[in-house]
């Protein structure tokens, strides 16, 4: 599989179809991989794909806007690429998507398979320009059992839960910076006029950051878990991103990155939208 992947990229680079190829390479130990940037057709031998390839490489597309790129994507990462194209961050012609069949990836911190991989319906990538390998999609759809379970808590319990989480937060912004849709040139968290967020790091201020970030990525977040796995202190951000996915689906029947022709839910409206909760 690695060989096939390397050959495709080698050809793309050699034929100057792309300026850069972004894939994975081995990192510091057997359990870790990191993003690899390849410019030279003779430098593709280091590219690999395995169950430790956890990063969503769609992240880098917004950072290399001016180049033609080939990017290695797991089925789930392709949604990110499409979402970004929808948000006009680059054009489809400038990116070659190399889909890799994936049997699920492991969190390097826990060694456990990510929860999202259990009911994955894109183990066989869809919408890619090239596909390497074959994967068997899960028959069961994505479920929101953990979110539903969490929703049953009282608001006090929820607040206490998050308070404990955000006490841990060190505001390193790894969650934001690995997020493919957090591409704003100047994040609200950096602003001083007005100062939406104080530099002071405490549970309340940290929570404010996460609340606003979650609101900003609503309807755009593909629930790729990049933020969740990046967090150095294991804050279960998946509980939030999954909630966003659930709400987008339930409130607006929207799935990020799924349909190129549908605008994100907050960018449009329907005259028949529900208003059951409005006084």
């Amino acid at each position: 599989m690695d060989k096939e992947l390397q050959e495709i990229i080698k050809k793309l680079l050699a034929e100057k179809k792309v300026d850069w190829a972004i894939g994975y390479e081995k990192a510091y130990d057997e359990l870790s991989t990191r993003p690899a940037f390849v410019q030279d057709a003779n430098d593709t031998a280091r590219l690999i794909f395995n169950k430790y390839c956890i990063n969503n490489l769609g992240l880098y597309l917004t950072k290399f806007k001016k180049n033609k790129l080939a990017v290695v994507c797991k089925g789930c990462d392709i949604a990110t690429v499409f979402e970004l194209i929808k948000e006009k961050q680059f054009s489809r012609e400038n990116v070659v998507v190399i889909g890799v069949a994936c049997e699920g990836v492991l969190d390097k911190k826990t060694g456990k398979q990510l929860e999202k991989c259990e009911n994955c319906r894109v183990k066989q990538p869809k919408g890619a320009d090239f596909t390497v390998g074959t994967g068997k999609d899960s028959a069961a759809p994505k479920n929101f059992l953990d979110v539903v379970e969490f929703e049953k808590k009282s608001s006090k319990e929820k607040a206490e839960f998050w308070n404990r989480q955000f006490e841990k937060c060190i505001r390193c912004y790894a969650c934001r910076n690995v997020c493919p849709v957090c591409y704003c040139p100047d994040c609200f968290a950096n602003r001083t006029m007005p100062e939406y967020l104080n530099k002071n790091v405490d549970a309340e201020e940290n929570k404010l950051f996460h609340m606003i970030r979650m609101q900003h990525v609503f309807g755009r977040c593909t629930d790729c878990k990049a933020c969740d796995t990046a967090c150095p202190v294991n804050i279960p951000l998946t509980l939030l991103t999954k909630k966003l996915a659930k709400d987008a689906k339930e409130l607006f029947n929207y799935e990020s990155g799924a349909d190129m022709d549908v605008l994100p839910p907050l960018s449009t409206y329907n005259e028949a939208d529900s208003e059951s909760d409005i006084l």
Partner: protein
Amino acid sequence: MARIGVFVCHCGTNISGVVDVSRVAKYAESLPGVKVAVDYKFMCSDPGQNTIIDAIKTHNLDRIVVSACSPRMHELTFRNTLERAGLNPYMVEMANIREHVSWVHSDNKELATEKAMKLMEMSVSKVRRSEVLTKMFAPIEKRALVIGGGIAGIQAALDIAAAGYKVVLVEKESSIGGRMAQLDKTFPTLDCSACILTPKMVAVSQDKNITLLTYAEVTEVSGFIGQFEVKIKKKAKSVNSKCIGCGVCVTKCPNKKSLSDFDGRLGPRKAIYTLFPQAVPNVPVIDRETCTFFLTGKCKICEKVCPTSAVDYTQQDELITEKFGAVVVATGFDIYDHSSYGEYGYGEIKDVISSLQFERLISSSGPTEGHVVRPSDQKEVKNVVFIQCVGSRDESKKRPYCSRVCCMYTAKQAMLLKDHYPETQSYVFYIDIRAAGKNYEEFVQRAQNDYGVVYLRGRVSKIYERGNKLLVKGADTLSGAQVEIEADLVVLANGLEPRKGAKEFSQLFHMSSDQYGFYNELHPKLAPVETAISGVFVAGCCQSPKDIPDTVAMASATAAKVCAIFAKEKMEVEPLIAGVNQLTCSGCETCYNVCPYSAIEMKDKEVKRGEVRHVAEVLESVCKGCGVCVGACYSKAVDLKGFSERQILSQVETATMPITNS
């Protein structure tokens, strides 16, 4: 640091009867930046305003808070006060301590006073972050574009031209006149349609201010009010300007294979044709899809017979770009295609015709020269059944609206028929008679009483062909009886619907349309001819079905609106609008997608030296300051002047803080 003055109004006892105004003023004095705080009986009175002006001068104030009534009441008053004192008028904020405090919290004076203090403090916070705003001016191209050469477009063009402004009238057919030119007579006066229309058409062609572009279509629009840039495609007519309109070419053209759309496809049309005899301009065009020369390369008879050598087969489509300050859209309507009605024979029974076909049959310039005969066998008719509400008021056909003119034209057609053929008998199946209009009800009554037209309230369930007759089966719901009428001809009252392609056309201007495709007016009551796009107006049936008088009135209204724009030297733009900080814009187009006024333009721009990015820009003369873009922008690149993020956030912070130092 800001130098703020706070002025607390008693409003007689309206406020001071409940709120301890001196405490409010005292609290204001304790706030940082507040240099002076006073209370006064009537802040809005002349002495009250003078107090403010004096304080501005004495204390060198640069921002003002007036704690008084609703800003909806007196914000303008105090803006003017500031202007008189030499301050920027947008440096005033009002704290509404009357409508929102004293009048509604009279049950607890202590709490009311505290709330008044808080609201005042919030306004102080806000005004501290106010910015100097100045009105902007934008240039205006004083030329109007009128799209559609029907009666609406004609009227709008004439009215604008009469005011002395230049107009370009674009019509996609080879002649102006539109639907009205197809009609025989008009209700409720029964005067001849052509007799009242053609003088206006001629007036258009003779008006020096009007440039007429027929056989032309608008293909691309950019820009905004005052500065629209429009691409117009002038289709090749194959006849040049040397044509004197003698019509020899049309007479001699051997090709009559096509049917005339203008005549409801009841008669033939030559390959070189004018729409109708009184066409303006009276210049024929060649339909290249049917012309023998263009199909086979042989014929050229028209070229040979033309006395002025006006036929030019080499003509090409031409694309021109013109600038306009305002646009009137009057693209008209199509009639509902009744082939979806199974009970009326799916449009396949020859002698079941549409109302427009009837107009052409009875028109003396029509295909039968005014003889009402059956399309199937050209025989004259005796019994005629009219069926109303075809593609109107019909939920099953997704046309639940009333087309407004069908009741009237059906009565008219039945009367005209009787006038021409006194022996005929007409029957009208109807749901309700809608004859709201000057002399309209009287008109329908005349049809029944003086012309003996039989009105049957009910729907037709089936039309059969029996022998050479049509058997019309229906119910008369008033008598409860089943009715069966043997008819020679059935005329359907087809409803009105938007032109085919109306949706695509509306996208040229980013206009919105309703679920049927009729263009949306800005406000259904108070802005019926404006659209959400500044400088674009709608007239006639492209907005909704209406009759000729309403259409003409609407057209004149659009002309008045256009003239009101052109009458100004420059366009004044309210400064309370959105603005984009392109350095922080991520180019995601969210604002572009949500703006109700298409006031956002996406551009590739050099935002930093050497850094070209796809970013949003607000068209200042188009933005109306709703702020939807600000609420939607997650990059926080758009902000709204007068209601900026800084201002609102400071209000939020102040509102949630306990009252300090009191």
